[in-house]
């Protein structure tokens, strides 16, 4: 991967004791500004999907409510907590990397991946349970939306694993390690969390 020039003042990797606060001294875009184009664009696209879902929900509220009752709010809550925690560790990873504590950053990255994997396992389990209970992609309108939204989100999560892989590769290098790439990938991972927060509230919580 290219060693791209930093977007702002050099982070405190040199001369800053590891473990100390790794706040940036001046305002800088986290990671490549380009990644924000993806973040904001995907947020809009998902909002469009969710708006369509909400609009059609009110047309068939009886059916949607009945079907929604077959979802487990506990699993949904667990999923959200898993991703929120993974974001916490991802942030810690970025801060550790910025402070020069690369071993710590690598552990944080691995934990992030682990939590993401737990989410993946939870989702697949939930899907399996639903299908086993007779609710599939084509069962009714609610479940079409459910499987579509969680499916496309899961695809984003899988891409997120690739970005964590890129972070780990960057952290392992001794020369030409790019903090910007680490932060760019982290920005993507948080987007996966952000999208899930929206999906969760609209599939599991709204009435």
């Amino acid at each position, binding site marked *: 991967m290219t060693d791209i020039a930093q977007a702002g003042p050099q982070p405190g990797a040199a001369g800053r004791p590891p473990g100390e606060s790794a706040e940036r001294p001046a305002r800088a875009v986290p990671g490549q500004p380009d*990644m924000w184009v993806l973040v904001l*664009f*995907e947020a809009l696209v998902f909002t469009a999907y969710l708006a369509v879902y909400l609009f059609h929900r009110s047309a068939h509220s009886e059916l949607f409510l009945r079907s929604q009752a077959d979802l487990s709010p506990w699993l949904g809550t667990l999923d959200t907590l898993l991703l929120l925690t993974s974001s916490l560790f991802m942030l810690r990873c970025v801060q550790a990397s910025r402070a020069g504590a690369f071993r710590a950053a690598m552990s944080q990255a691995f934990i992030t991946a682990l939590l993401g994997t737990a989410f993946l396992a939870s989702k697949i389990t939930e899907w399996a349970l639903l299908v086993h209970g007779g609710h599939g992609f084509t069962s009714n309108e609610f479940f079409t939306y459910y499987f579509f939204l969680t499916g496309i989100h899961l695809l984003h999560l899988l891409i997120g694993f690739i970005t964590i892989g890129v972070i780990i590769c960057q952290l392992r290098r001794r020369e030409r390690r790019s903090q910007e790439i680490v932060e760019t990938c982290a920005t993507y991972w948080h987007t996966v969390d952000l999208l899930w927060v929206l999906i969760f509230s609209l599939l599991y919580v709204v009435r």
Partner: protein
Amino acid sequence: MSTTAAGPATPPGPPAGSRLGRVAWHWRNNPKRELWFAWYTTVIFYNIFFIVFFPVTHAQPPPHPYWSDAQVAYWFNHNHDGLLIGLAIIFAIAGMTVAQNALIAYSMRRMSVSRAFGYSYIVMYSLSAVPGLLLLCVVLSVGAMRPGRDPAQVHWLYDFAFLSYIGTMGIFLLGSLVWMLAILLDKNRVLPKWFGYLNLCNALTEVVVAPAWIFHQGVLDWNGLISWWVNMVVFGVYTGAFIMLLRTMIQREDFGDGPLPDLRKDDRAKASALAGTPR
């Protein structure tokens, strides 16, 4: 690190005078004429494509998958002339899509990445034109050709046409990923990284279209609110972006091997005139 531009020495500039005279000068002397030719071909193609597919043939937005035989037969009869004339135009100009593929592959050739990227893209997108454009045109023409045909047969042609057009997105998906990877790995700054990421958004929309094979109605069918309308917005933004970025790329092109120079303000003014001058 940029090698000196390998373009031929260019005469000072187009003579002042008629527009036609200036165009003729560029055609004879501008070292980027092939690139500009490809770019203008792309723009013209998309304009004709839009006019033919939307108001002329009414093939876009696609009509409903859940129609009965009678409704489908009515659609063909109602659009008989539009379909046959419009699609005949498409058959005549379909070769113009080659220019777009070539220009995109050229962008990858100019990048610091392996040439395999550009070549794969050309192969993929050339093949994808068959189910992704031509089949639809052939089958809809066949359907419109004989108005007295059995409605059940016509319905079969209708399903075949629209499913092949909307459903065969795998190649577009992979092509977008190839271009994305090339852009993200490129050190020559040919295209901005944000466009690389936009390729990912475009690739994901191809996945969103896949349920069109399963659903005959609702938001995920072949003309659904999600599978077609939202997707079209994404595709429109993506296409508009790459047309503008390819234009900027041509303006910046210095025929070297290193990073493309940035477009300076004064260059924008004389970009199409002296774009081939070595810096």
